[in-house]
């Protein structure tokens, strides 16, 4: 039986400061992240002791230097938020890692809350910039000059499931799911065939099937084996193949369908061999063909379109759903996946309310037609970029949403609530509530631990190696009975 779903996303945003000849991305990121002041004392550390990004899921440790910043740098780069999220500087990008959630709907709410957090801090940061300089953020994945940055999805999986089986089953799924998950992009890069418009922001950047890298020679399946949980029981599948989506419906399908497929892999319910001859080539062939007619070469000699391959996965999922009780969100995801697959087989442009790449393509084509431009025009490229702009008054996705042109999954009120409240059904609840209630005594945080420094006592680390423990049901009484961090630690002992 598949383990319960636990998931989250890590989104890297593009950052630029207009009218600033000395723009430096790293110092701008530090300014941005520190402009968000939930912890006015600004002294809570990120606990790097718990990290090991060099462990490989195929069973070995890769050579390399583990990054551990000094205390000052640590505080300047990391913010752990009362909603259970981590907001930080990763290399030269601001990154928002959502708290752990148990379903795709909560994932949408919390990923969207991240957009709000970034936008609020962008405005605060702008007030500190020299006159005329304006910081802008984009939730996208490419600068169209060969540089990419990610939207990583994380899914908790049963350690007993063979990694080899995960890889085999996921390669054809990930090469083709972009037909309903792509964020759309003008042109191509990274030495790929030229094109006007393609389905995915990221596809051009994948150069290998399976590897540990995330910054060069990117793999369709990433092997980072850092479970942030009991490593005897769990693995965290760290997927770097997806686009940063703006559409709530697209985010919902991206994470929701993938979670169903992963449960099916755990239960051995993927019983059709859809292995592609060359997944790296296929992911690009699919992306570069918005007509969705391209046929991909399978290892068994057959040729199938991305729609046909996704339909195979959908059929297997429907059989799986008939035999297993899925939670209500998964049932709804399945329903919406069916709707989308039906439309893709007709006219994909019918999905302009649901799917990012379609919404963007319609917007760009309408603009090009009315202005008599071509795809190479900088204004068209600007439109592409501005679709992902985090400003609610200038971002083109938000404009579509405001005009009632996008399907919603949640409400603005739910998103604002998630800026300040953690999900209630994972350990993120305990993390967020401790930060809200005892900010002075929280010393350091990681996904699977929180440590306290109370008075002269030694620092005490509480481990949270079970992602579903620490939920409101588990710890609300404990928290309410603890008026101080000291009482909390005493109550935990008793």
């Amino acid at each position, binding site marked *: 039986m598949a383990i319960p779903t636990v998931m989250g996303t890590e989104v890297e945003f*593009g950052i*630029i400061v*207009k009218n600033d000849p000395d723009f430096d*991305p790293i110092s701008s990121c530090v300014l941005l992240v520190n402009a968000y002041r*939930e912890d*006015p004392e600004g002294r809570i550390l990120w606990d790097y002791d718990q990290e090991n990004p060099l462990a490989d899921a195929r069973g070995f440790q890769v050579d390399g230097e583990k990054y551990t910043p000094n205390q000052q740098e640590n505080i300047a780069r990391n913010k752990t938020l*009362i909603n259970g999220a981590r907001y930080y500087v990763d*290399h*030269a990008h601001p990154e928002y890692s959502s708290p752990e959630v148990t379903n795709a709907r909560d994932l949408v709410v919390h990923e969207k809350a991240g957009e*709000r957090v970034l936008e*609020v801090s962008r*405005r605060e940061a702008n007030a500190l910039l020299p006159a005329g300089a304006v910081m802008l953020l984009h939730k996208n994945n490419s*600068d*169209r*000059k060969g*540089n990419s*940055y*990610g939207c*990583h999805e994380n899914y908790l999986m049963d350690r007993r499931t063979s990694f080899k089986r995960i890889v085999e089953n996921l390669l054809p799924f990930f090469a083709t799911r972009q037909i309903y998950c792509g964020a759309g992009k003008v042109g191509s890069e990274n030495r790929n065939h030229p094109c006007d418009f393609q389905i995915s922001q990221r596809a051009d950047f994948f150069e290998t099937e399976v590897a540990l890298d995330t910054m060069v020679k990117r793999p369709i399946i990433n092997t980072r084996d850092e479970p942030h949980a009991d490593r005897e029981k769990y693995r965290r599948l760290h997927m770097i193949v997806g686009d940063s989506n703006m559409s709530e*419906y697209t985010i919902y399908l991206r994470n929701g369908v993938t979670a169903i497929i992963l449960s099916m892999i755990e239960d051995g319910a993927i019983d059709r061999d859809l292995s592609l001859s060359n997944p790296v080539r296929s992911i690009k062939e699919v992306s570069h063909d918005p007509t969705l007619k391209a046929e991909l070469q399978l290892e068994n000699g057959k040729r199938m379109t991305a729609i046909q391959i996704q339909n195979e996965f959908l059929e297997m999922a429907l059989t799986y759903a008939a035999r297993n009780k899925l939670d209500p969100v998964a049932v709804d995801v399945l329903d*919406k996946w069916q*709707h989308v697959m039906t439309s893709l087989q007709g*006219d994909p*442009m*019918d999905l*302009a*309310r649901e799917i990012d790449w379609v919404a963007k393509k*319609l*917007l760009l*084509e*309408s*603009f090009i*037609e009315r202005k008599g431009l071509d795809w190479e025009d*900088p*204004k068209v490229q*600007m*439109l592409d*970029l501005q679709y992902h702009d985090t400003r*609610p*008054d200038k971002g*083109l996705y*938000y*404009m*579509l*949403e*405001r*005009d*009632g*042109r*996008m*399907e*919603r999954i*949640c409400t*603005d009120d739910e998103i*604002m609530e998630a*800026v300040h409240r953690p999900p209630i059904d994972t350990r993120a609840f305990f993390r967020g509530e401790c930060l*809200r*209630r005892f*900010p*002075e005594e929280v010393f350091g945080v990681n996904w699977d631990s929180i440590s306290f420094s109370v008075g002269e006592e030694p620092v005490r680390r509480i481990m949270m190696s079970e992602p579903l423990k620490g939920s409101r049901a588990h710890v609300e009484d404990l928290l309410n009975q603890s008026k101080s961090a000291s009482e909390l630690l005493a109550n935990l002992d008793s």
Partner: protein
Amino acid sequence: MARFINQHSRNDSNSSASIWMAASGEQKKKSKGDGGDSSETESEGGQKMAKKGEELKEDMDSLMEEIDSVLEENAEEFVKNYVQRGGQ
């Protein structure tokens, strides 16, 4: 201190909500599909707002004017200077 933070975060909640809303205009009023729970049911069978390709394109007229008013000036320079190194 804990109470201060409580207070702080509540205030912050209100202020950031209002910042967001203020800039997004009358988001609630204009948003047609934003019915919370009802948006899910609306998207199922009815698809009352869904239109076919050509219809949708015609429907884009008002939007194009709005784009003209928000599109970043000096697009050519902006796009040229948009460089994002160091990403995963």
